[in-house]
């Protein structure tokens, strides 16, 4: 027996109303992370034992600045989605689940903001 209304079947968005949005964004940011990881690891290797002057000098290259901003933003969107699934799998009590999901979003937004603002400041040399 099909309990779904014809409209819901046409929309195809499922019970959460998001369709494949979460799945797709997790894959998309995963692919981005895969590419950006190569640049990120190179950046870290170039920064080993660097003085403050040597480290900040790297940000005169706009590609380095762009790479780090992209890695932080793609990484944060990806890790927020990933942690959401982990929370939904293990935290079943409704109130605690909601609190964890909110904390997850707050944490990720804060990490992204501090990261991106720091990179911008290093780039403009403020």
């Amino acid at each position: 027996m099909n309990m779904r209304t014809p409209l819901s079947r046409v929309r195809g968005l499922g019970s959460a109303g998001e369709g494949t949005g979460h799945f797709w964004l997790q894959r998309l940011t995963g692919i981005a992370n895969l590419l950006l990881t190569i640049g990120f690891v190179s950046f870290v290797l170039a920064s080993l034992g660097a003085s403050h002057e040597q480290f900040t000098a790297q940000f005169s290259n706009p590609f380095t600045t762009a790479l780090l901003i992209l890695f932080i933003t793609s990484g944060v969107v990806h890790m927020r989605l990933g942690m959401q699934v982990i929370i939904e799998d293990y935290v079943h009590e409704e109130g605690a689940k909601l609190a964890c999901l909110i904390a997850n979003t707050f944490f990720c937004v804060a990490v992204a903001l501090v990261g991106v603002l720091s990179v911008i400041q290093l780039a403009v040399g403020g």
Partner: protein
Amino acid sequence: MADTPAKGAASARPLSPHLQIYRPAITMIMSIMHRVTGAALYFGTLILVVWLAAAASSPAAFDTMQWLLGTIVGQLVLFGYTWALFNHMLGGIRHFIWDTGAMLEKATTTRLAWLTLVGSLGLTFLVWVVGYIVWL
């Protein structure tokens, strides 16, 4: 459906087996590792951001972070981060392959799981050798 026992009543039917019933298989271990490394990277991003924030705030703060990350404990954490990143990255590639419906045969998944483990250890080793050459 008719003879389903009431909630809380003892059931005569066998319960579905859970994790601890199975003999560990490499596919299962690497599946768990993908989640564990994803969660580890979640907090690893925090280290990256603190490092960048330190550099943006002052030379003294940055020097403290560079020193901290260079200690034995700091290096152990970074080594774990490196391995988690490569393990999760190769695990992610595995997911992308499976998303196309390919390579889901039992023998193939076992081989892919071993490849993920060996590949991630190899990449971690490679990056750390390069890292020590750069650093020392």
